[in-house]
């Protein structure tokens, strides 16, 4: 993910968080969670309120039909007044037709609000992730990030789509029928009410159980995603070592964990639902027994009992739905908790309020100064220790040193991939933390060792450097980076798709594209992180020629292992263990007989045999 971007400090970090499979308990209290979801709905809250009010009216209307039923049983049948029946028929059907219209309207409104919520959550999540610094990406696995932004958001949408309206309809109808029961016969109604606290208690217990389990299900899903991401990106190695079997076993293992988590949830769901229903059954039985007794006593009409029983069925009917919906809602709450967890992640690289534009008063010059800069990935284990460098505009600073000496960590601070821990880094005399990120990065061109190409045409990949560039400018940059010729030799030229599913480009070709990107950007400051590595000699020389031109007039920080690349630097800093141990020009450092000379000697030795061969040959 971030080769070269992670110093040795990052190695020391332990494993958890990468797979995120350890079980977590519910961490956010329900009201807080609901409140936050409410915030996201925002402007749609009114729509939602209106929709629920509409549902309330529809539920109230639902009470009319049983009332009419009682009237029919108690009055119409005994009096044999057949002429009333057509009236009742028309009345009932118009009630239902009205309900249809109301329910339709509320559904449309709710789905608008629900889809807006889901859309808004996904958007907020991605935009938030974009603001996070590289530290977050070091810690969080690809699989987990993808899982939360897709799978969790989907679950949220499933619940919002069906759940909210079902829950509202169900609860409202229970409330309205509770009132009707009271009006019909308060004694029997009280018997029914006695069951309510039990219902509430039972559903609370199961809700918590379900939510914890759903969080685990989603975590296991992240685990599946993580292995999947890794196995797909590493498929070449797996094939090369004929290890598909083991890879498969890892996937099946994660998949199995996901299955187990799902089944454990299914178990709770299967047992809890009917158990809660049982409460309703007992209370209905009680009503039937007491009610029958009273009819026999003559203190209750048979019509009232029948009607009461009919209402009672409708009173308890939504429970079945509510239990189902509750499972969906708990699942959604579990997912939204995971989404909020990311939204709460604070970036350690943020723009100060009132941050200024680097190009504000005049265009940036590109003076870069590091003053006593300290930095660490893990607190207490600094990878940069009191580094100071003064790079006036237009100068070239080369960083050399062993793997892990802190070179990449140092250049990572210039575009604020990370912030310094102590000391400061200034551009044109201004602390980079006082500048807007956009204006700072606009003035910096980065060419990394690892060239990342997006799955778009070559032209767009180069244009990535400057969005407004014309096609002619793109081609000019490609020419300058010695990329034009190979691009034209591709069947579709600049329109060739590259990136993951694109044409296969060699590493040298990719690096030249990356260079063209940086050229197009025309930055004041250039950061070259091993830009000429891993290419054949001819390509290297092409790239080197291009670089020499590009570096002219720009402040350049260059990390390279080929000393030939950095011979012309104005300042060479030799780094060791996070400190600059030697600095000077190439000639000066060679004359000093120190670490630089030693590095140079080893480089020379590596090619000694060649020179010997030339001499002999």
């Amino acid at each position, binding site marked *: 993910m971030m080769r070269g971007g*992670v110093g040795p400090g990052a190695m020391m970090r332990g494993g958890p968080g990468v797979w995120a499979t350890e079980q977590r308990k519910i961490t956010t209290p329900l009201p807080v969670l609901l409140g936050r979801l409410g915030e996201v709905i925002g402007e749609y809250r009114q729509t939602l309120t209106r929709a629920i009010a509409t549902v309330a009216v529809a539920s109230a209307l639902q009470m009319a039909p049983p009332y009419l039923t009682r009237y029919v049983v108690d009055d119409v049948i005994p009096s044999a007044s057949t002429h009333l029946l057509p009236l009742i028929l028309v009345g009932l059907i118009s009630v239902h037709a009205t309900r249809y219209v109301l329910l339709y309207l509320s559904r449309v409104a709710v789905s608008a609000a629900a889809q807006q919520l889901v859309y808004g959550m996904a958007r907020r999540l991605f935009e938030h*992730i974009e603001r996070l610094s590289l530290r977050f990406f070091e810690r969080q696995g690809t699989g987990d990030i993808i899982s939360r932004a897709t799978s969790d958001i989907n679950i949220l949408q499933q619940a919002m789509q069906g759940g909210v309206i079902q829950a509202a309809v169900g609860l409202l109808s229970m409330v309205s029928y509770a009132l009707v029961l009271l009006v019909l016969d308060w004694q029997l109604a009280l018997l029914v009410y006695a069951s309510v606290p039990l219902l509430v208690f039972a559903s609370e217990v199961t809700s918590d159980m379900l939510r914890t389990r759903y969080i685990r299900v989603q975590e296991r899903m992240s685990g599946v995603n993580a292995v999947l991401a890794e196995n797909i990106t590493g498929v070449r190695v797996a094939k*090369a070592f004929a290890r598909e079997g083991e890879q498969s076993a890892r996937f099946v293992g994660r998949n199995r964990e996901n299955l187990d988590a799902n089944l454990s949830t299914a178990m709770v769901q299967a047992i809890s639902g009917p158990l809660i229903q049982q409460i309703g059954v007992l209370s209905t*039985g009680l009503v039937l027994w007491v009610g029958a007794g009273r009819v026999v006593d003559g203190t209750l009409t048979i019509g009232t009992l029948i009607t009461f029983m*009919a209402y009672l069925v409708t009173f308890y009917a939504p429970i079945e739905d509510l239990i189902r919906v509750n499972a969906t809602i708990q699942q959604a709450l579990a997912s939204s908790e995971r989404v909020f967890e990311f939204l709460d992640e604070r970036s350690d690289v943020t723009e100060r309020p009132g941050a200024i534009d680097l190009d504000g008063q005049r265009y940036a010059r590109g003076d870069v100064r590091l003053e006593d800069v300290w930095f660490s990935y893990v607190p207490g284990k600094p990878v940069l220790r009191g580094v100071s460098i003064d790079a006036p505009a237009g100068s070239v600073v080369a960083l050399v040193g062993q793997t892990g000496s802190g070179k990449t960590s140092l250049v990572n601070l210039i575009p604020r991939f990370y912030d310094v821990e102590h000391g400061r880094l200034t551009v044109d005399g201004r602390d980079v933390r006082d500048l807007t990120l956009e204006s700072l*990065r606009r003035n910096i061109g980065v060419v990394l060792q690892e060239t990342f190409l997006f799955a778009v045409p070559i032209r767009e990949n180069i244009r990535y450097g400057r969005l407004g560039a014309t096609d002619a400018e793109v081609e000019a940059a490609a020419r300058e980076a010695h990329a034009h010729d190979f691009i034209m030799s591709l069947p579709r030229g600049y329109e060739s798709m590259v990136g993951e599913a694109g044409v296969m480009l060699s590493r040298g070709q990719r690096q030249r594209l990356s260079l063209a990107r940086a050229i197009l950007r025309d930055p004041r400051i250039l950061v070259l992180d091993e830009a000429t590595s891993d290419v054949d000699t001819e390509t290297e020389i092409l790239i080197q020629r291009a670089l020499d031109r590009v570096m002219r007039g720009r402040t350049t920080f260059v990390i390279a292992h080929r000393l030939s690349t950095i011979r012309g630097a104005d300042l060479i800093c030799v780094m060791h263990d996070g400190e600059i141990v030697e600095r000077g020009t190439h000639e000066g450092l060679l004359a000093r007989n120190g670490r630089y000379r030693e590095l140079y000697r080893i480089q020379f030795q590596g090619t000694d045999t060649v020179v010997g061969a030339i001499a002999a040959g």
Partner: protein
Amino acid sequence: MVAGTGLRMAPVWFTKEVIDTAIPRADAALVILYVVLFVGSAFAFNAFQAVETYAQQFVGQRVIYDLRNALYAHLQSQSMSFYDANQTGQLMSRVTNDVSQVQFFLTQGVSRLVSTVATVVIYLAFLIMLDIQLTAVTLVVAPGIWLLQDRLKAVMPLMRVMQKRMADLNVVIQEYVAGVKMIQAFGREPYEARRFDEANTDIRSARMQQQQLMAVVMPGQEFFTNVSLVLVLVVGVYRVMDGTMTLGTLVAFQAYVLTMWMPVRWIGMINQMAQQAMAAGERVFEILDTPLEVAERPGARPLPSIVGRITLENVSFAYGNERPLLSDISVDILPGQTVALVGPSGSGKTTIVNLIPRFYDVTSGRVLLDGVDVREVTLSSLRSQIGFVLQETFLFNMTIRENIRYGRSNASDEDVERVARHARAHDFIIDLPDGYDTLCGERGARLSGGQRQRVAIARALLVDPKILILDEATSSVDTRTDHLIQQALDVLMQNRTTLVIAHRIATVQRANQILVISNGRIADHGTHAELLHRSGLYAGLYEIQVQATEAAREELMGTVGAAVT
């Protein structure tokens, strides 16, 4: 299921008995009996339902588990050209999002569908027995409900769009994470946000349209079922007045109709889930139906232990109908030889080495190991005899030990350490806080480039292959590390047939044979000395390297001279 539905009906029956039998007789004991039966039968029904729900979930989840595994296994057996043509995010989305939609239907939809159908069938039978005329009245609304379902056919195309765009979201996020440094450096967050938003907006619009349909269908179903109840009431009352039906029967009939229609109100939801699952299922099967380009022949036998002779006979290779990347390559490499491939970047060097382990299959010609066509042997026996050190060192997010052991999972810890020493990796590994148990991070990101390479060399050493394929990429590290890696590679190349994509003159010079590749053809071949005289291309490549080296030497000599004087 039938028993369950029978149980579901029992409580209503006992209610009817209380009203029709016990109350008129004023028999308190009978009331209690029926109430107990009512509670008991309801209890039994609920218990039955618990078992049934779990059983259905179990089956659904198992099916999904198997489907995911099958999908994954199929993905994994695809050749590299499949992976060249498909983005990681797209493939991931099929295994996760699309399967999840199928899962949603199988675990939530199917059980509801089954219980709905069972309920309707059994209740209908019962209603017919009770009163056939009133049953006919009940069913007057059935065509209406049916028509509503027809409207939901429009859901499937919408869901196809949605599932596709979900995959696009996956791609944007996956690319973002992979290219985060580039994106931040170029300040292209707004652009990525826009890509995300486009897909996200399409998803929202597809779902909105789907929900519009549902807003018509769901209350519509309820309307029709309610109308049915009204009709039953009105017609039933006439009958009670006629005396052709008891009041108790009417009450019970109405209760049955109510219970029968209850699950039918879900049918639109189930239908919609099914449409969505079908749209997602199509995408799953699209992968499952992709034929394998590099497949083992039926009856392929294992490749016996080889000595390591590699022969390419008139090999050509092209992707699909595109311009050939390799044309008419023929070469014979004897066991133990080192052959260097040189040539400009993009000339086809990597493509040649990819054909030997059958990452791709040749378009024409043959690749032979010890005289056996690679297409005639099992893939695992072929690949386990070939070792790789690739240019892009990929390590898995496992411990260093597990990564080294990757090629031979039964190797002992001593073996792992031994090869790590040979690969000059042991020293840095034991310097890490967790030593061999250090986690490597995603793609090995927690190790530096030089460290990753040495781990990869150790990994290849442990396999002890007869054939070694080496994509030389040693310049991404500092000179000291470079030196160590060079030593490690020298160890690795001993006694093996080695095919090396060379970038260093030193490597080339030591090779027994050099192939100069240009535009997918072998432009020339021979030893260093022969080629230097004969091949202009080779001499050119060589000259460039020599110049660089000479310049370095002169400068060192010069400064040393200056320092001495």
